[in-house]
Structures are given as structure tokens and as C-alpha cells.
């Protein structure tokens, strides 16, 4: 038996570490890794509540999130690779073409 707040605290810590990573990192691959941390935090919540309410919908949804995360990483790394090929850098502060 596990207290639910323990699970939720773990997930909240992972999520805020991910927020820090997204904001503080400049390397595009590092930012993608921090986004993975945030997606994992969401999955921890989904699985915890699924076990609490005895409802499998949470676990099925966590599986969908994992699949979409895999798609996101594939596309994201392809875009990063394309940026590197065109600009010789993946420093996000230099990829600011669309910034007002």
C-alpha cells in the first residue's frame, strides 16, 4: 500500500525538473530530453490514479502517451538534424528566425 501523495510528489518533482531543463538548456537535444522528463511525470500520475481507482483507462492512456512521445522524439530529432545540417549549430538561442 502506498500513499497517493508520495506518487504525486514524485511526479511533481519530475515535472518541475523538466520545466527547469526546458528553460535553462540551450542545446536542442537537451531540451527534448527535458520534455521527456515532463511526459514521464504525466505518466506516473496516470498510472498512480489508474491503480487508485482500479480503472485500466489510465494505464491504456499512459501507453498512448508513450507512443506519442516516441513519435515526438523521432520528428524532433529529425528537425534538429536538419537545423544542424543547414546552420552547423543546434544552439536554440541562434535559431530565432520566427521570434518576433
Amino acid at each position: 500500500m502506498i500513499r497517493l501523495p508520495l506518487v504525486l510528489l514524485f511526479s511533481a518533482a519530475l515535472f518541475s525538473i523538466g520545466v527547469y531543463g526546458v528553460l535553462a538548456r540551450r542545446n536542442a537535444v537537451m531540451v527534448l530530453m527535458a520534455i521527456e522528463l515532463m511526459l514521464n511525470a504525466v505518466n506516473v500520475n496516470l498510472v498512480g490514479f489508474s491503480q487508485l481507482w482500479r480503472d485500466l483507462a489510465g494505464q491504456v492512456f499512459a501507453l498512448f502517451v508513450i507512443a506519442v512521445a516516441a513519435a515526438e522524439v523521432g520528428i524532433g530529432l529529425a528537425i534538429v538534424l536538419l537545423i544542424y545540417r543547414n546552420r552547423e549549430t543546434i544552439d536554440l538561442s541562434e535559431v530565432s528566425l520566427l521570434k518576433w
Partner: protein
Amino acid sequence: MTAQEYAFSVLALLGVVAAVRVVTARNVVHAALYLVATLASVGAAYLLLGAEFVGWVQILIYVGAIVILFLFGLMLTRAPIGREALDNPGRLVPALIALAVLAGLVGLLLGAFGWGDPRVELAHAPTGVVGESLFRRYVLPFEAVSFVLLAALIGAIVLSRKDEP
């Protein structure tokens, strides 16, 4: 605290420490390896909670596939190593924002549940039951997700292919 709570706390501590190292490491490959530790501890937490299928999928997909993708991305982009090249100059503001998010989430969840009120029974959710639910009730979303994955992978191949002259 029960024995399961101690085990979960140890796993969570391990995962959080490794996650902090993911976002602070100076070497990009070390960050990827710490990401393996975080993802594995999250997977072990799923197994401890009784969600065995999600736990093994986490180990297989995240540790086995996504981290390898990250390592390939790092190798193909030759990122410079060192704090100045990896991090934004001002790290205080992101740290403050992250702490504010953490404080908000903790306040919200402790306000909603209190410490120790609902307890998760560690019921075993066998793989067969999850599979039955996935392929009976959620078969349409499942097919939609598989199409999303297919489209994303084809898109990734098209994007990263070298253009023929």
C-alpha cells in the same frame, strides 16, 4: 510507512537525483545516461505500483529505443561540451520558475488529498487484462495512435534524408 512506501521513496529519490543530473550535466552523453537512470527508476516505480505492462513498455521503449535515438542525435550533431555552450547564461530565472511550479503543484495536491489519505492498493494489473482493454474498448484510439506513429516516422525519414540534386 510500509515497506512498499520505503521502496517507492528510494526509487523516487534515485529518479529525482538522476533527473537533476540530466538537466545540469555538462557532458551531453552523461546527461543521456542519467536519463536512462531516471527512466528506469520510473519503470521500476510502475512495476512496484503493480502496472506490469506499462512498466515493461517503459523499459523497452524509453530505455531501449528513445535513449538510443537521443544518443544518435547527439552523435550526429557534435554538440560542444561545457556549461557555457549548453546552458543559457541566466539560470536563476528558470530555477525560480521551476521552484514556483513545484510549490504550486505540491500545494495543490496536498490541498486536494492531504498526507496519507487515499492509499493506492498495490493491485496487480496483469498484462492480459490491459491487452483486452486495449483491443476491445480502446481499439479505435489504438489504431489512430499507430497511424500517428507511422506518419511521424515517415515524416522523420523524409525530413532527414539528403536531397538528391
